[in-house]
């Protein structure tokens, strides 16, 4: 009954190379789990004549762990990530974030790569064709005004994936395949602060794997939302922290649901050597509040999302310090 999907064609490649070759054509898009893309296509906010279905590409589905690090294929489903013993042992924060995404039915098909490349979201954007047309479209879709910040030049839709902030604080790198071959880069370089085009992938480029360090045990993720399931984060916070002799060795804070990209909070290296006390927590709070830039992209107040992010950051730092 979906008019919008009526005329698409699907290609089902078996290898990464085939997939990349197929995707180079015009109007083609990769299809991972489809839990976001198909909804967006049905609403008419994402259009594509051809979907390159990645479900049959086995090379995207491997998880390999050794002493030097862990490599997770972009096509690994969230449910598999959650249940993977080695992942939960080494990276509890990844499991916390993955388990907080949508609902079990989604997690059975949604993938790591899909969550990292999730489209940005906005209350003026994730609406039906009738709704957006009645509202004269928006900067992200067919229009020339951002209804969130009409005087501005850019789209403010918020990145709302749960996994990215965790992978950022863990120092993950990503591997990308494209018509020009493969490249590897820090995850942070996948994103830019533009709600309309927040990914730096070129046309036809495919996220194929995430490279993680050998261990990320002292990290945690928490998400603020109204309900215990289904909801995207109003604010999501990941913290990774190591301590030495009761003092901070390294502290990293990642945010989602606030800006147009997942954000690795800058300036936390200054906390090295400090004890986790009220002053430190206040400083973390200030830093998060300063760098988080939520705007009216959700029905919940933007100011609240900033406060909640800071509160959760404080809490996670205290928790990871053992307090």
């Amino acid at each position, binding site marked *: 009954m979906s008019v919008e999907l009526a005329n698409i064609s699907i290609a089902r490649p078996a290898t990464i190379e085939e997939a990349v070759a197929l995707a180079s054509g015009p109007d083609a898009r990769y299809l991972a789990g489809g839990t976001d893309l198909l909804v967006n296509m049905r609403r008419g906010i994402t259009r594509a004549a051809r979907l390159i*279905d990645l479900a049959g590409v086995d090379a995207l589905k491997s998880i390999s762990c050794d002493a030097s690090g862990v490599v997770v294929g972009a096509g690994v489903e969230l449910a598999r990530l959650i249940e993977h013993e080695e992942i939960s042992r080494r990276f509890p924060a990844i499991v916390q974030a993955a388990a907080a995404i949508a609902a079990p039915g989604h997690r059975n098909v949604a993938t790591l790569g899909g969550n990292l490349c999730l489209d940005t979201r906005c209350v003026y954007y994730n609406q039906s064709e009738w709704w957006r047309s009645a509202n004269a479209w928006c900067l992200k879709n067919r229009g020339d005004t951002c209804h969130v910040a009409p005087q501005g030049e850019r789209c403010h839709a918020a990145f709302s994936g749960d996994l990215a902030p965790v992978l950022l604080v863990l120092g993950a790198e990503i591997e990308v395949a494209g018509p020009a071959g493969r490249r590897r880069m820090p995850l942070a370089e996948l994103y830019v602060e533009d709600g309309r085009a927040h990914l730096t992938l070129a046309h036809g480029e495919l996220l194929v794997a995430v490279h993680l360090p050998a261990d990320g045990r002292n990290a945690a993720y928490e998400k603020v939302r109204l309900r215990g399931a289904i909801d995207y984060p109003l604010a999501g916070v990941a913290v990774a922290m190591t301590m030495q002799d009761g003092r901070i060795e390294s502290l990293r804070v990642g945010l989602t649901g606030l800006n147009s990209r997942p954000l690795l909070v800058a300036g936390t290296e200054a906390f090295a050597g400090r004890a986790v006390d009220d002053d430190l927590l206040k400083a973390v709070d200030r830093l998060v509040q300063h760098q988080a830039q939520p705007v009216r992209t959700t029905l919940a107040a933007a100011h609240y999302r900033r406060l909640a992010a800071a509160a959760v950051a404080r809490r996670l730092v205290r928790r990871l310090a053992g307090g």
Partner: protein
Amino acid sequence: MHGSAKPRKRLVRIEVNGRWCEDAVSDGDLLVDYLRDVAHLTSVKVGCDGGECGACTVLLDGVPVSACLTLVVRCEGRNVETVEGLVKQGRPNRLQQAFHEKLGAQCGFCTPGMIMASEALLRRNPHPSDDEIRAALAGNLCRCTGYVKIIESVRHAAEASA
């Protein structure tokens, strides 16, 4: 016949409730429409505009998925189960019986999806805790019961099969 040129259909073979079906489908066809309109399995309900309510939950190779987020072409050669398929010789299975006896179903609209998500849970974890039941049914919205009797129904079915 009405005019606009549509892409060619392709044949898919899917095992639906234990019976292999072969049907011509378009690439963009969703499993929910295939099950309702082609296989006439109307237990698979449409409650939302895409992926939000869980009423169309079916098992794909034993794993619960939303049929409204699943392309039929992805089901080629695979096994799909709906609540109709749990009935054997006209008898409801243990979960269906429990949802009936314990009033896990009021209006009944979310019930088939709720039962399929529960069925997947009990196959994997025959004796779940209440929190495990909650986690497994987190994507299935019900507006009638407050979920109290749904949890009781699943618990009862688990006890019945002990």
